[in-house]
């Protein structure tokens, strides 16, 4: 594990990605303490204040400090996006490995079901789920997880099929192990590398998807300062105060870049053959 971290930090992408994500993590933990002003304090006279000494990133249509809202909003945005991704990728990985292990009719049944689910575009599926369960942050996270699982199951299954053919799995069957042990202890650890890398890349998608849902009013509800919601609320005033839209947009982009770079770095770090 320590070895992996060292290899990760040796690649430039890994180093920059890790630094960006550390920065985001600090924001999530200390956000409210770092915020210079009350994110929900309305200042009628300071509406549309441009970035300056009073408001570093400007103020929005209600005179609320954009920087403060951004710092506090990190808490609403990132942990949920991360949780949704983890839930989606983990369940997908488990399903894919299980499908590869069971093979035959079960494999066929699971994979064809997943094909059917994949035929519906991710955003549409998420919309469908939220529309059924009702708007709200947790439901949006669940919707994202469901939208992510099928793709992940496909990727994992292809790797798990290779692991299934390995003799250590045959050896486990030959000594009489049950399916649970084989899936969890013999196969899953060996399909982890692509799963972890895919997960980091999907976190960025989750932030976007979450922002999209909030933007459509199906995720976080006002006056929460979720980044996607911030963009949605500021959209009508784009011409008067572009900074209100640009700041959260840049924050989302930064998150996406951070996780993508981390994924790139992990891909190199988890391939020990690259050692030479």
């Amino acid at each position: 594990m320590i070895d992996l971290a060292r290899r990760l930090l040796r690649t430039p992408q890994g180093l920059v990605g890790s630094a960006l994500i550390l920065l985001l993590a600090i924001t999530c933990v200390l956000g409210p303490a770092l915020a210079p002003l009350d994110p929900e304090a309305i200042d009628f006279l300071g509406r549309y204040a441009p970035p300056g000494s009073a408001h570093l990133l400007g103020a929005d249509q209600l005179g609320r400090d954009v920087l403060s809202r951004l710092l506090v909003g990190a808490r609403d945005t990132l942990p949920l996006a991360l949780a949704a991704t983890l839930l989606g990728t983990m369940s997908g990985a488990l399903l894919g490995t299980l499908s590869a292990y069971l093979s035959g009719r079960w494999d066929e049944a699971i994979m064809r079901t997943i094909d059917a689910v994949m035929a519906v575009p991710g955003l549409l599926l998420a919309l469908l789920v939220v529309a059924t369960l009702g708007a709200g942050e947790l439901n949006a996270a669940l919707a994202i997880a469901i939208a992510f699982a099928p793709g992940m199951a496909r990727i994992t299954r292809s790797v798990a099929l290779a692991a299934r053919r390995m003799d250590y799995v045959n050896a486990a069957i030959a000594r009489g192990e049950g399916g649970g042990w084989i899936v969890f202890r013999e196969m899953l650890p060996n399909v982890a590398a692509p799963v972890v890398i895919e997960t980091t890349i999907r976190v960025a998608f989750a932030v976007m998807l979450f922002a999209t849902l909030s933007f459509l009013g199906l995720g976080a509800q006002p006056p929460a300062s979720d980044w996607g919601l911030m963009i949605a609320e500021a959209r009508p005033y784009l011409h008067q105060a572009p900074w209100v839209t640009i700041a959260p947009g840049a924050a989302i982009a930064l998150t996406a870049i951070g996780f993508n770079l981390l994924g790139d770095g992990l891909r190199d770090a988890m391939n020990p053959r690259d050692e030479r």
Partner: protein
Amino acid sequence: MSPILEIVGYTLEYRTHGGTRRVLDDVALAIGAGEVLGLVGESGSGKSSLAWAITRHLPRNAREVAGSLRLDGADLRAMTAREIRSVRGRRIGMVFQDPASALNPTLTLGRQVTEVLELHRGLSPADARAAAIEALNHVGLHAPEALLARYPHEVSGGEKQRVVIAAAFASRPELIIFDEPTTALDVITGARILELFARLRAETKVAALYISHDLALVSRVADHVAVIHRGRIVEQDSGIDVFRAPREEYTQRLVAAVPRPERRLVDDAPRADILLAAEDIGVTYGRPRLFGRRQVAGNSGVSLQIHAGEILGVIGESGSGKSTLARALTGLVDFSGSVRDGTRRITKPKQMDRAYRDRVQIVFQHPDSSLNPRQRVHEILARPLRIARRQVSEIPRLLEQVRLPTAYASRYPHELSGGEKQRVAIARAFASRPALVICDEITAALDVSVQHAIMELLLELRRAQGTSYLFITHDLNLVRQIAHRLAVMRRGALVDLLPVEALSAHADPAALHPYTRELIAATPTPVG
């Protein structure tokens, strides 16, 4: 007369994160015109690195410290990339170990031969086609015109290797490097390739560097043999002399480890009671499809008995169904027929319960894939012990049993050598104190000296625990040293089941199946 290839004081290092590693140290070799030099070494001895150095295809982290490589007087190291391209293929031919990966699967065989001819001999497409037909004819392939239009996957491994050899000889090079050309092939096919090699050599008088791990084989095909050990040439002499009277201690060990059928390692007789019996075992691969069934028979009608304390050798070529039989007996595939375990009849894998699995264990061919790379040795051994209702505290004893330090329990498989990994796999199989261990080509991926040590270990374990072995191999010399009886398989069926004495020189050959006779004839007997 100046040599075709002359290597003087060649030293090569690889830079890794752990520092520099010297792979070739002061290597000096010379190959004269029409001469074959055999280069023998175990894995990691640097023999392949030397081949790459000669063809100037070294990895980026390689550093050449000293020495020179000369092809007919011209310095290969001083050549530019463009000059090297005109040397490769035209003046130095190369034949690799695995013909399946040496040929491009998306090009026809014809294209892969004519390409060489057009590039290196400047022939027009029509002339190249004619020359290719001649070249394929020359390597003993029937109907070369038809073969030209086929793709590599449509022909057998032996035919593929013949095409590779034809392509290598087609440009009339001065030197051909053979890198284990028969290792990936069956015994009989390999023997034919060696015959071809001898014939082409006599006809073309080409100089050759023949790289192999098999000392017995090299001493037969080469005029001179150089033994390489950890990047150093330890001994260089005429082929027969190296084998008959090795001077260096390392070569002596290597020669002693070569299996010889006349030197029996087992002298006891098995007991009369039957431990396990396979009755009419049949296995088919492939599953029913929507339109019709496409199925391949892995085994058909195989019946044999294994006695208590017996070593039953199973021999045959790849694809003959040896491993399929092992998989059926351990319940890894569905089978028809039955397995009789004492008084019980088992007809499907689900009926193989704890007691059966404790009694019948398996060791696989590749230790790399049979040990989970994410588990430490401790976990690899603890799990079978727990399943067999035994104590985890027995792990040190298990490791001692296979002659491994007890500290190895905290290591990962990739931190072990190939032989050590196979020892861990054997320890795992013995965790439940089995009555029968199925050994599926367990030494095929190992060096000769390591193979020797593993065989001794197996026999020692057998002496201590009275274990029976079903020993699957393609190496007739090896199995004749240990087996009580031999089962010969071909195309999924058992063709011969006989006591090992029936194979000895003074036994009646008429008692053997023609295929068995062919197999014996193709197996190289060690000289000396």
